[in-house]
């Protein structure tokens, strides 16, 4: 499906969710609680069959944290971007999509390491890039580190 057709399909299938578009992909905004059911439906539905999670990341938009999932299909070669807005900054928790795509294993480790978002249902959440004793989450905008020298 092209970007326009996919947008129309999403507006019809999820009437209570917001559908926008970015420069390349249609964008679907999902609530935190609906992540697993909606994504599972997107993966299994025969019209979309999004079986390839090619990017999972987070963005720190003050004051919210946003989870971004980029999905693709090896059958139809169309793409979709799904965004989940997390309100709390202190201890954000969201369901892990490891049960749907095994690629989430390493992606979510990195997001936990850099942003501090915890994932429920992840097999082995750990700090993957930084050392285990690191304080703070570097990719957040309010990350303070005494060792940073600004020129």
């Amino acid at each position: 499906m092209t970007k326009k057709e996919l947008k129309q399909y999403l507006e019809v299938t999820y009437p209570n969710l917001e559908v926008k578009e970015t420069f390349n992909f249609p964008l679907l905004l999902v609530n935190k609680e609906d992540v697993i059911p909606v994504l599972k439906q997107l993966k299994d539905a025969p019209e979309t069959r999004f079986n390839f999670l090619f990017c999972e990341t987070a963005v720190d938009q003050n004051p919210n944290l946003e989870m971004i999932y980029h999905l693709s299909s090896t059958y139809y070669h169309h793409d979709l971007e799904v965004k989940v807005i997390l309100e709390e900054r202190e201890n954000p928790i969201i369901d892990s999509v490891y049960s749907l795509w095994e690629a989430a294993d390493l992606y979510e480790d990195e997001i936990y390491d850099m942003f501090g978002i915890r994932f429920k249902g992840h097999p082995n959440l750990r700090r993957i890039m930084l050392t285990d004793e690191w304080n703070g989450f570097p990719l957040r905008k309010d990350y303070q580190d005494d060792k940073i020298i600004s020129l």
Partner: protein
Amino acid sequence: MENQPIPSPTELRTEEFVVNIGPQHPATHGVLRIEATLDGETVKNILPHLGYIHRGIEKMTESMLFKQSIYLTSRMDYLSAHINNHACSLAVENALGIEVPARAKVIRIIMDELQRLTSHELWWGSCAMDIGAVTPFFLGFRDRERILEIFEANTGNRLTMNYITPGGIMRDVLPTFVTDVKELLKKIKGYRHEYDQLITGNFIFQHRTQGVGYLSKEQAISLACSGPVARASGVSCDVRKHYPYDGYEKLDFQEVIDYGCDNWARYVVRMEEMKQSIHIIEQLLDNFPTGDYRTKIKGVIKLPLGEYYQRVETARGELGVYIVADGSNKPYRMKFRTPSFSNLGAVKPTTVGLKIADLMANMSTIDLVVPDIDR
């Protein structure tokens, strides 16, 4: 240990022990630590530990201009430096709607494909060395040196070129570029039969790689593997075919897919890709366009508000550049979806149950480059 059942007198009691392979190791292709739980020779579990070369590239891009980020992308997967630069430049150009002249496009693709050749030559040499034969390492590097000479003459650098920038390329190629590359390709094609005789047709090498390191198609898709790893399991995922950029849609080349799913299939896919790269370069050299080598971008580059994603096909797989722009001259967030990071997940399912020697063979055919994983 106390809750283990007491073995009968005829049972042999064995223990599993944990071995750290790396971070300093000749075979891990970088600083990667793999914690392997072994039972004798058999691998029971694998846990990779990353971060030894984590430089915080994504955080650094937030304080750099768009043009300056090009320099950081070269250092991520240094064996596909041109292609990484290409990705970042394309993201910026598509967002601003800049049209690149035809000559620049052709030169970009030729540099990309030459870079793919150097990466595969190095992969071939180190793959053979990990499996035990030392001589192919020198043969692979001999050809790589010839290509790097062309890079150095035209771009000024051998490894981190920073040649492809938003708007076109940094400077024009030498007048002898076309003849140089034609001669080089003739030599490289002449050496192919050496590779086939020495390693591809070698009985021992085939026995070490055939049937070893099985990665099924469903698992490859679920792990988001891309590049030769996925194509050797039957997944059609070449970005140059499905999301073509910069003129790939007009070129005649095949996407190399094999259904073997083992190390031998990944080896064959890469050897065939080298042939396809040579074919692409030959097509482009035949009608080499004249004209400008870039469009000048006036002023400082400021991307309009929004999110932009660009994918390219590096030697390892699909590289994605995701830019969240807020209208200023610096990106708000720039994320690099690197192929080796996802391919790393393929090490565990291919190796559990096999021997240590197979772990080395698997890692070398999956072709990980650790700075790509850690960024």
